[in-house]
């Protein structure tokens, strides 16, 4: 027998020897019993389970978006606080300048007044 024929013969015999065998009548009830024995949340029909998965995913995505929005809002508030502080400092600086001008004007008038009195 040539090696090729031998191989062909062996392959034919393997096909015959490895035919599938049946596990018996009790197999399907066994599978269904194991499904029934699972906790209630694990027993949801596959489509319902898929819907629940999508809902969970949607909820998780919403939480992430909410956290990002809150973070953005917080950053904006900090920026607004900085701007308000800058404006306040600017207002104080302007007020300080005005007060200095007024002080100098009053001082100049006070110094001029005694000189006029003494001249009269």
């Amino acid at each position, binding site marked *: 027998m040539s090696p090729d024929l031998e191989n062909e013969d062996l392959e034919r*015999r*393997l096909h015959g020897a490895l*035919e*599938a065998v049946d596990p018996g009548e009790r197999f399907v009830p066994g599978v269904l019993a194991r499904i029934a024995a699972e906790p209630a949340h694990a027993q949801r029909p*596959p489509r319902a389970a898929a819907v629940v998965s999508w809902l969970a995913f949607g909820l998780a995505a919403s939480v992430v978006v909410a956290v990002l929005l809150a973070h953005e809002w917080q950053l904006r508030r900090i920026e607004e606080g900085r701007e308000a502080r800058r404006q306040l400092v600017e207002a104080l600086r302007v007020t300080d300048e005005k007060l200095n001008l007024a002080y100098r004007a009053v001082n100049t008038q006070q110094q001029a007044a005694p000189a006029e009195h003494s001249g009269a």
Partner: protein
Amino acid sequence: MSGDEPCTSGELLTQALAGERAAFGALVRAHQRSVYSLALRMLSDRHAAEDLAQEVFLQLYHNLASVSSEAHLGFWLRKVTMHRAIDRLRRTPRYASAAPEEAAAAASDTEHADPMLERRLRSLVSELAPAARAVVLLRYQEDLDPVEIARTLKMPVNTVKSHLKRSLAQLRERMNETADALT
């Protein structure tokens, strides 16, 4: 399911997806021979094989939404069965070294010319290394070609071909030894 009218696998899939247990039972019945036989010939233990096959269908029940067609279902079942079996062989070495009598005795109900020879052949297959055994089973029990086997076992096609070549050589040699011993 509607009465005694036979349903196509596609209809069964749709009904099982909608949560109909009877339809899922019919799907299990349609594929139980293939899944159980692969598990039995990988583990060489009837109880372990039945347990593994049930686990595979339990996993299918929870993942039905990801199965798109009848062809995909067959592919999915073979893939999960083989990976679970190889994983169990790694975790429980007693299966790997178990006496192959159970696998050898597990003949189909059809009659063949030489039951003794086929029994010996099954015994020799169950003595192959797990990866090589998986390749041989998918080739000769499930009738898959090397490309389909490579996809199922996630291994390169050339590795599948070399497993097949070496396994056939090994089986032929052992069969010849048996024949010599008998004469």
